[in-house]
């Protein structure tokens, strides 16, 4: 009876087993890396918009307050996008003929809304409420980053569940005076020794209980 296996069969078998193991680990690492990458989370990827609106110019250089355009932020779940007429309060006076603003003027004439591409978006099964966060003193910058330095807007943080729960587990370091929530640069405030313990004091005053804040129903319904 002839030999079934050749002399090299053992070597081939070992090579295959090792090769498969390496491939599996590699695929795992690559998949994990992709899942954590900013390619999927879109963190720091500028988003194309119909009008190349610059927060850097309007907030950083001109000093407009966030709430001038995002009017719903203190009272409702969504901060809201400004209606075309808000843009036109200024741009009916300045840059009236600018080519980049043509879609805004067209919107006012035709009544068709501007179609902005969402930057800070969350899945449909997550219910985020701006009003309660802003009223508790979670500054805009906490989630949206230094918007005053973004010529085109991008996502400052990967909006994964962990980003939310980190803060819900330990809100104290993220609480700031509600009357200053739209402030962008907090370095001097954070450095001021008088503000040490502010978050903890606010938590006591407002009966904020992290044990409740991490419950599923806070965000998922």
């Amino acid at each position, binding site marked *: 009876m002839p030999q079934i296996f050749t002399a090299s069969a053992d070597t081939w078998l070992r090579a295959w087993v090792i090769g498969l193991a390496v491939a599996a680990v590699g695929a795992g690492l690559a998949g994990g890396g992709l899942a954590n990458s900013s390619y999927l989370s879109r963190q720091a990827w500028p988003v194309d918009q119909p009008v190349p609106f610059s927060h850097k110019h309007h907030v950083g250089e001109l000093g407009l307050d966030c709430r001038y355009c995002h009017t*719903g932020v203190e009272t409702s779940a969504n901060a809201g996008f400004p209606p075309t007429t808000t843009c036109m309060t200024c741009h009916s006076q300045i840059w009236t003929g600018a080519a980049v603003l043509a879609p805004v003027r067209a919107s006012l004439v035709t009544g068709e*809304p*501007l179609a902005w591409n969402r930057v800070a978006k969350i899945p449909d099964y997550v219910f985020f409420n701006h009003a*309660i966060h802003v009223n508790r003193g979670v500054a805009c910058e906490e989630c949206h980053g230094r918007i005053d330095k973004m010529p085109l807007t991008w996502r400052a943080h990967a909006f994964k569940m962990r980003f939310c729960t980190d803060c819900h587990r330990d809100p104290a370091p993220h609480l700031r005076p509600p009357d200053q929530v739209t402030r962008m640069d907090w370095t001097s405030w954070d450095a001021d020794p008088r503000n040490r313990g502010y978050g903890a004091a606010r938590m006591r005053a407002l009966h904020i209980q992290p044990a409740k804040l991490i419950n599923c129903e806070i965000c998922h*319904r």
Partner: protein
Amino acid sequence: MHRRPSFPKDLASPSDPAIFEAAAAEFPAAFAGVGETGRRQLLQAMGASLALAGLTGCTSDEPDEQALPYVRQPEYRAADRPRHYATAVAGIGGYAQPVLGTTYAGRPTKLEGLPEHPASLGAADAFTQAALLGLYDPTRSQVPRRLGQPADWGAFDAMMVETARRLDARQGEGLRLLTGQQTSPTFARQISQIVERWPKARWHVLEPVNEDQRLAATALAFGRPLQVLPRLDLAEVVVSLDDDLLGPGPQQTRNARMWSQRRIAYQAGQGDHRLFVAEPTPSLTGVAADDRLAVAPGRIGAVGQALAARFGLAPAPATLSAREQAWVGAAAAALSQAQGRALVSVGALQPPAVQTLGLALAHRIGAVGTTLRLAEPVALAPPDGGASFGALVAAMAAGAVDTLLILDANPAYAAPADSGFAESLRRVRQTIHAGLHVDETAHLCAWHAPVEHDLETWSDARAVEGTVSLIQPLVRPFYAVRSRHAVLETLQGRPVASGRGLVAATWRERFGAAFESLWAGALRRGFVEDTAAPEIAAAAAAIPAPAPHAPSSGLELVFRPDPTIWDGRFASNAWLQELPKPLNKVTWDNILAVGPDLALAHGLESGDIARVAAGGRTIEAAVWITPGQSRRTLTAFLGYGRRLPDQVGDGHGYDAYEIRPQATPWALTDVVLSKVGGGPRLATTQPHQALDQPGIVRAVTPAQARAPKPPPADAVSFYPPVPKDGPQWGLSIDTDLCIGCNACVTACDAENNIAIVGKDLVAEGRQMHWLRVDHYVEGDPAAPREAFQPVPCMHCEDAPCEVGCPVGATVHGPDGLNLQVYNRCIGTRTCSSYCPYKVRRFNWFDYTGSDPPERRAQRNPNVTVRTRGVMEKCTYCIQRISDARIQAKLENRAIADGEIRTACQQTCPTQAIVFGDVSDPSSAVSRRKAQARDYSLLPEENTRPRTTYLARIRTNGEGG
């Protein structure tokens, strides 16, 4: 009490075929292929499931969408806060059902009863809740049609101008207008305008389920037709002769609301509350009755006469059975004890002679003016009264009709079988149909004009007690449709007018100089104050002739409107089609109700097809064996057998209009019943999710109900104690108040984005309703005791489902909510198999992904739309809890008692459901749960449910 009377009382050996059958009925999907699948197929399926399981995780979490801001934002409005508008929908019979409509970013998403309205006090019935879906119905008519082909409004208007010129030449001779019953003051103004301009024009009405016989009866008794308005809140003893006071219909909300007021007072020990019902076929009123008598339709008159004889109003009838004698005796005794606080009511479907007898009796016991109010009829009366439709068809057949405009009526489907409408229609020169759908009548007419839904139109209508509601749009029309008033305006050859202008013109006349402020006030309030029909002090009722009593040798058949589809007008509404009918839980079909004895005699089983022949006409219908049906009586339900290609309601059930005669529209005698054979499976949920064991539905005596609650037994639990911090949510459902009307189920459909699955999947036991209303039957099938029990999630403190979930997708919240986290769920369905109450629903398929944009627009934006492969269940309307919690925090206050109301609670016409904080002993729900009647389902499971029930109160303590 058992859901299936045939369920074996003692559980015999597990091999007992009856048990297998029962299990197959409860879990149809699980037993569908048992015995047919081989070992190999099973292993293949398991292998494939395992290999493909990972793919279910491959869904995109990211909503890929754009943000569309306003161009001009309305002032003081954030787009995502709800806006509320007080308006109404013109429901059954044209009567206004007042609503408070919720809109998000301009999209109506929910209707609630209008709290201030005197006829509803914040409640709404199932039809009104489902009106919302009618707005978003993608099969609504969207463009005008000429000879079945899409046309444009320009051509329609040109035709109307031409028609008007032709009519002008001969004073409107040959113009006929056919509508459904109307209550709208603006419609009345327009009709009088038309008749003024064209004196020979004539208006006709076709309302398949009408009150003509009641108007005829009041005309006999009081000399003129009158509206009869029972005041059930004042009636301690109610005797109903085939009057479904609590059943579906335009009066349901008002009657149920008042009945529950009286019932709640009775529960607290104030006065008596007894209900006697004699009826041929079971109804919701019959289920609520303390003493129900099943009696042949032809004998209602005899029973009424016997009752009248006890008060000396009529000679005693010759023959009464012992059971009838006993019922009459008990009812008469109760009535004479409670004179002035008693009510006798005869159904509007009974012959006028029987109703007159009832009115005389009501007058004799002092009901007229107290528990029975009389008023001018609210519905507009056509010139020919009850003979209106017959007069039209006669004129058409005689060739006297030149132009026929049909508005909100469907004579090609709903006309009596012997009227000959379709043939006569061919002799009409110009036929125009205006309505929401391209229906059977639209197919026969030369022109079709699509009209606006009530939630996008301007109009007005009156509620059953007369209060006028202004109907204002919640949203601009989606399609190129017109208001009904605009169509009537173009009929007169006038240019298209705005619906708002036409309604305002009516009220400018009435309000006079103060128009602006009164109009604005009425729009804000939703109704015009002090417009209820004034009460009329009636003269003594004429003593009636003894009721005619023709003994029928053959079977008798009665017609009833369908409990969810009514006369067919709601056939395109999927929420109402999938809503289980209260007494048999059949969905998507109508049935022929047959009593158990009669079914046995004919060898019929539920679901078999039977042939019904009467007066030379036959229909074939699916039989349902109905306990409590009078012995030799059949009940046919109207509204099905529609011929609506490409629409939701097409082809389901049988068409009862095919044997309905014009002369006796509500009853047939000498009916012949024969078995045809087995039929296709009926999709009934009656056996599904059964909790068949003692103690599920309970009844106590009045004395037991008022006794103090015994201290709870200290149940030992293996679970660690649940930390309780902050409000603890709980629900109490009073089965003594529940009438099984299904309003809660429909409200839940709208509030929680419940998917509709269709007839086949309901038959498999895969319906998605988070809240089901169980129907229990017990005792002698000829005279059963029946009960209803709404079953939402119990939100157990020690919830078995939470232990079962391998991925922690169902967990406990600090406020006692049993949470379901859709994005964690991987669809093992372990939780559902662990749930002893069977309240969890699984998304077997993607029910929502292929929905057209119109349907998506209806959804509640605060509730996740569930995807395939996840489990879902009642959340106690967690979105409402979250909203209240956040608002309370923003205002730095605690959540007030009653601030959060679940959707089912808010719409319930009898206030049977109360939600609130059970840790606060002064909250409404805690006070309810402190009653001796409080009990939980399956207490032996020791799940400590937060949803508990109050037992029914029965004088003998039976029926539980």
